[in-house]
């Protein structure tokens, strides 16, 4: 009896205590939302009020006028989708080979692939930049996609998952005359869907959020991704007030936020994949 009431009391305290940090935690987004509806003079009014006196709806339209936001979103979508697809596809092939086929040097290959997961981006970025420059790929989609079109982590993840699929299924299918490739895509892939889905989320979000690489390989505004494009709004000037900057921020941040809210469980599962690394 006593335990239940203290439990209940603890729970209520936990909830109350949580609400304040929760509000603090989400405040930046609320603040930016409020700023995005303020015009030039209101933004600098002191003391600041969260609800603007006049709703400056034009900020959002102006944001589109300042920079090709649609183009940034398109670029990010194209690059992230392509990168994710290629990483998943190459990982499926490689993981299957490692999980199901015996061949000389398999252990070494697996070891090398796992080793690539230990290499941080800083160590590869300068030579990769020089490689891309020599190939004349600077400021192209290839430069953004190709260097990241395979993932050691993806291979490792799918390899582990595929290993756990019983071998008998495959042996039976092969005896029936099915080709290994058909078996891979008709049986193994569907069975591996949980891992593939989680990895896809992880890969897509990672691609979307990339900063340093797109920063150095893009030169023209048209090729910039969302993350780099927002840099154009870093400070205000004659034609661009903070309200417009905040509107642009919200426009460019909403795809990922909406995706998160809509698919929270899968999204979270995908992000925890990074933990297995």
């Amino acid at each position, binding site marked *: 009896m006593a335990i239940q009431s203290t439990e209940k009391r603890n729970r209520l305290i936990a909830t109350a205590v949580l609400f304040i940090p929760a509000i603090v*935690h989400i405040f930046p987004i609320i603040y930016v939302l409020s700023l995005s509806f303020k015009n030039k003079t209101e933004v600098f009014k002191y003391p*600041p009020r969260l609800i603007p006196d006049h709703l400056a709806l034009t900020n959002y339209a102006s944001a589109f006028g300042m920079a090709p936001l649609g183009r940034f979103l398109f670029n990010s979508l194209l690059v992230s989708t392509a990168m994710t697809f290629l990483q998943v596809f190459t*990982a499926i092939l490689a993981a299957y080979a490692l999980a199901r086929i015996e061949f000389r040097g398999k252990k070494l290959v697996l070891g090398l692939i796992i080793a690539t997961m230990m290499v941080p981006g*800083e160590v590869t970025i300068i030579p990769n930049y*020089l490689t891309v420059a020599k190939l004349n790929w600077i400021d192209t989609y290839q430069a953004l996609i190709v*260097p990241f079109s395979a993932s050691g982590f993806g291979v490792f993840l799918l390899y582990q998952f595929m290993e756990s699929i019983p071998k008998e299924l495959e042996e039976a299918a092969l005896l029936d005359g099915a080709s290994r490739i058909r078996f891979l895509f008709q049986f193994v892939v569907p069975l591996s869907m949980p891992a593939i889905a989680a990895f896809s989320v992880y890969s897509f979000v990672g691609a979307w959020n990339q*900063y340093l690489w797109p920063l150095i390989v893009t030169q023209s505004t048209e090729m910039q991704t969302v993350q780099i494009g927002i840099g154009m709004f870093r400070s205000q000037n004659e034609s661009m007030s903070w309200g417009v900057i905040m509107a642009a921020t919200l426009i460019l941040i909403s795809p990922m*936020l909406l995706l998160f809210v809509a698919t929270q469980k899968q999204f979270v599962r995908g992000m*925890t994949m990074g933990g297995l690394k």
Partner: protein
Amino acid sequence: MSSSRSIKNTALAWTLLLPTLVILGLFVFYPAVDSFYLSLHEVDAFSMKKVFIGLDNYKMLLISPEYWQSLQNSVMFTIMTVVPSVVLSLAAAVALDANPYFRNLLRTIFLMPVAVSSAMAAMLWIFFYNPSSGYLNYLLELIHINGPNWLGDGKWALPAVAITTVWKDIGFNVIFFLAGLASIPNDVREAAAIDGANAWQRFWFVVLPMLAPTVLFVAVVSVINSFQSFGQIHILTQGGPAGSTNVMVYNLYRDAFQNFQTGSASAQAVILFVVMLIATLIQFSVAKRQIRS
């Protein structure tokens, strides 16, 4: 019969592996080795001509005032972000776990920065830090504190960037702590409660020890991430003012892509890799000792 099949199999295996191996070989292995190679050379900015100079790049970094400042900044930044973010996200996770009301809403709120990149997090905070009209200084003034020019003051710029980073990292860390908490069987906690332990004792002596692997994991990941922080610095301060937010990876970026010092920057990349490796190893050994005690 079986040998021809094994040849076919081997051929198939290598074909399936080829795309991955080519990409990883060209864009991970080769550059990793090349970075080290470049670090031992003086590389001309435009012609890419290389002159072997041994460890000179590394020796020069030791006498570079800006490089030492960047080392210091990175260490300070790591401490300023990892400690608060681990503590705060652990607290938040425990509270979220214990709380049955508005579960989904509260979880969504706390986890939400996971969907925000470091550049976007910086944009969300940038006006907060405005010295005259930002909300942060307004709140401080309500409690009679004169807020500084956060992003323009050499003393406060790094903490400001750290606060933004902690905010962003809490979302990510809470996920792991929640997963860790979920894996602790309820009967263990109930047993402790029956034994007379209160909530705080249950947390400190039962939950936390069982959560130790997760805490270690989160700490290691946070340390590695903090050493690689770039986007928010590029947006908020560009390494300034007066180099106060010039962390190691930012100094590397400037030397490689603005000053065109390929050799020196490559040496910085190698050093950064070693530093992160050492930090990780230290954390593991400290954790091992804790676990033993």
